[in-house]
């Protein structure tokens, strides 16, 4: 066991820390334009740090806190990939409550795919705009009858006179209503076997024949959409990989999928926020933190999140030390993180009692 990082990382952490202190309280003036942007707004507008989301994205890239290893010519920082630095950035940002870079299907999934499998033209055309938040993407995978069994999808595209003509329907399409582009799986080879008949197309959302219908979810917001295609025509070159290779292209993308739920430091920040709250709020004059039942559950959750942090260090170690086999440790992160977060947020609601049921736009009783 060696948990020491080389001295340069100490300096790097200091640098990131200084950046975080400088930008504490940064606030986005276009935060309400899209749920994507809402996700990471910091909620405080003190200190005149109101900027646009795109500007923030640019600042992060210039400092190397986002798109670190993506070449400059495609709009990235152009540095080397460094897992430890990535960790330091994520943990300092989480600790200081600094908004993360924009995320979304385009940044998280399409960009890595294009870097790996896209043509030079596609890289030039899409990566920079996507990274800089100027081009929002949605992912057209799921269909009403193709969920877990994704490869049974039926939306079809036929090549007619140098254009793909697309007909069919997608569902669960996050952010489709705000997107300029969609990367989409369609059936192009109806005669081929299930997995071999799929192609990966890039579809401009402004093309005639596309109908986006928001799906209102339990938060009463449209987190998802249904997208209908009627004779939608797009250029032949808007394909990644070859005809019938879409399944492999999509799988290359899936390995890049990430989520904040797998970041144990963000979860620990939530625990710390809850502890602060429990020190302030009282029931019958007794601080919540002093009520044994809550106290015990809180520490049990803290222990579980600590275990998650340790597990994550082990996963990091395996990335840095080729040959180290961590078997299950990497595989469980998404599941474990999701369950843990559910447990934690559920406990937080219980601790707050009736106040825990208030919706985000409700007035809060003064303390």
């Amino acid at each position, binding site marked *: *066991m*060696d*948990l*020491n*990082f080389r001295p340069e990382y100490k300096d790097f952490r200091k640098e990131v820390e200084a950046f975080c202190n400088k930008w504490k309280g940064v606030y986005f003036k276009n935060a309400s334009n899209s749920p994507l942007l809402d996700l990471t707004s910091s909620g405080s507008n003190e200190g005149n740090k109101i900027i646009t989301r795109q500007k923030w994205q640019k600042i992060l890239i210039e400092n190397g806190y986002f798109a670190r290893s993506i070449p400059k010519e495609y709009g990235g920082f152009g540095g080397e990939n460094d897992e*430890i630095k990535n960790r330091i950035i994520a943990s300092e940002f989480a600790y200081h409550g600094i908004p993360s870079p924009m995320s979304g299907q385009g940044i998280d999934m399409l960009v890595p795919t294009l870097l790996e499998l896209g043509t030079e033209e596609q890289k030039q055309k899409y990566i920079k705009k996507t990274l800089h938040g100027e081009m929002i993407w949605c992912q057209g995978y799921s269909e009403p009858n193709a969920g877990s069994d994704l490869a049974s999808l039926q939306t079809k595209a036929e090549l007619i006179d140098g254009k793909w003509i697309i007909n069919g329907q997608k569902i669960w399409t996050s952010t489709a209503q705000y997107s300029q582009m969609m990367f989409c799986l369609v059936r192009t080879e109806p005669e081929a076997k299930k997995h071999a008949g799929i192609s990966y197309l890039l579809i401009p959302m402004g093309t005639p024949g596309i109908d986006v219908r928001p799906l209102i979810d339990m938060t009463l917001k449209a987190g998802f959409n249904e997208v209908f295609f009627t004779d939608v025509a797009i250029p032949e070159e808007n394909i990644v990989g070859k005809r019938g290779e879409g399944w492999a292209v999509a799988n290359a993308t899936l390995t890049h999928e990430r989520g904040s739920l797998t970041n144990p430091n963000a979860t620990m920040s939530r625990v710390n926020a809850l*502890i602060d709250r429990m*020190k302030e709020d009282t029931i019958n004059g007794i601080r919540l*933190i002093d009520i*044994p039942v809550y*106290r*015990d559950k*809180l*520490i*049990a959750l*803290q*222990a*579980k999140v*600590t*275990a*998650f942090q*340790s*597990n994550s*260090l*082990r996963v*990091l*170690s395996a990335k*840095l*030390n080729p040959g*180290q086999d*961590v078997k*299950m*440790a990497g595989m*469980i992160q998404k*599941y*474990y993180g999701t*369950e843990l977060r559910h447990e934690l947020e559920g406990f937080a609601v219980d601790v707050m009692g009736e106040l825990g049921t208030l919706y985000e736009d409700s007035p809060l009783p003064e303390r």
Partner: protein
Amino acid sequence: MYFGLSEEQQFFKDNVNKFLNDHASLDIVKKIIDNNDLDIKNEIANGILNLGINSLLVPEKYGGLGLDLLFAAAVSQSLGENVAPFSFAGSYVMAPIALSLGGNEDQKNKYLNSIVNNKMKFAVGFSEYIAARNNFGFLFKNNTVSGKSIFVLDVENSTHLLIADEAGQIGVININDKNIKLTELTTVDKTRTYFEIQFEKALVDILEETKSNINAVTRSIDAGRIVLAADSLGASEALLTKAVEYSKERKQFGRAIGSFQAVKHMCAEMAADLEPCYSLVWHAAHCFDNIPDESRLMSCHAKSHVSDVSKVIAKKATEVHGGMGFTDLMGIHYWFKRIGVNRQNLGSPETIREEAAKIQNL
């Protein structure tokens, strides 16, 4: 940066595993327990000691190997995995740490050297310091002690007794002292033994440093907790492996029961719950030697969390085995019960979580 067991630690762990596989299969463990066969039990204990287990944590200055706690955690994992009929946490982890930190030079020379050459073995009775149940606590007075310690670890084959009073002072008592009375307790876990010990003005050699500070007793308890967590971790690993194997062999409705999602998901959940426990225990053991600021809290988290996870795994793994799960023939209960006793030793999860809260000034 490297997170995990080193090659040497893995080697140590594998050695213990191999020895136990060769000499202490479940059949043999059962034989020892059913017939109270102390000869085989001692043979196994000697075999384990020959691997160097006794001197693992004794500083080199006193003839030991001077290794860090992660070695002990790795060894303990193997002991739990094999439900070894061998008591480790008290005599070979808590005792050397308590003596190293609490003793003056004379005491260290006398006691630590004797642990290394197997002339002395220490039982450990710290329960009253952790939480004095029903007022069973005691205080040393003029180098004597009266009262009782109700759950003393590793008494078997011990020559001396290491007890902590309510103030955190640690004292050594000769096990042959006429003024103490030993009563063997019968717990659900028959692989290890526990005693209640009564003292009536028994003579105590108080470890010099512990008269002025509680470092020795808290460090010793922290280490004991980590090692017990490792024991439960190993036991849980064994149970999960057994459950998965059984679910692949056992057929019902013409197919392996593991092919049913109800069973398969239960196994996957056990795996997901257990996996971070390896990291937590190793991390806590690493902090014990290298990151003192985090050490106490990590030890609390490791013991309480692994105890909770192990309890659930003991239950689910038994369920996967259906009715066979609670037969003596299958023997799942040996791991089940070992986990049950580890959970209470050196503080139940609730007791430890309260300590964890206090450590953080909450």
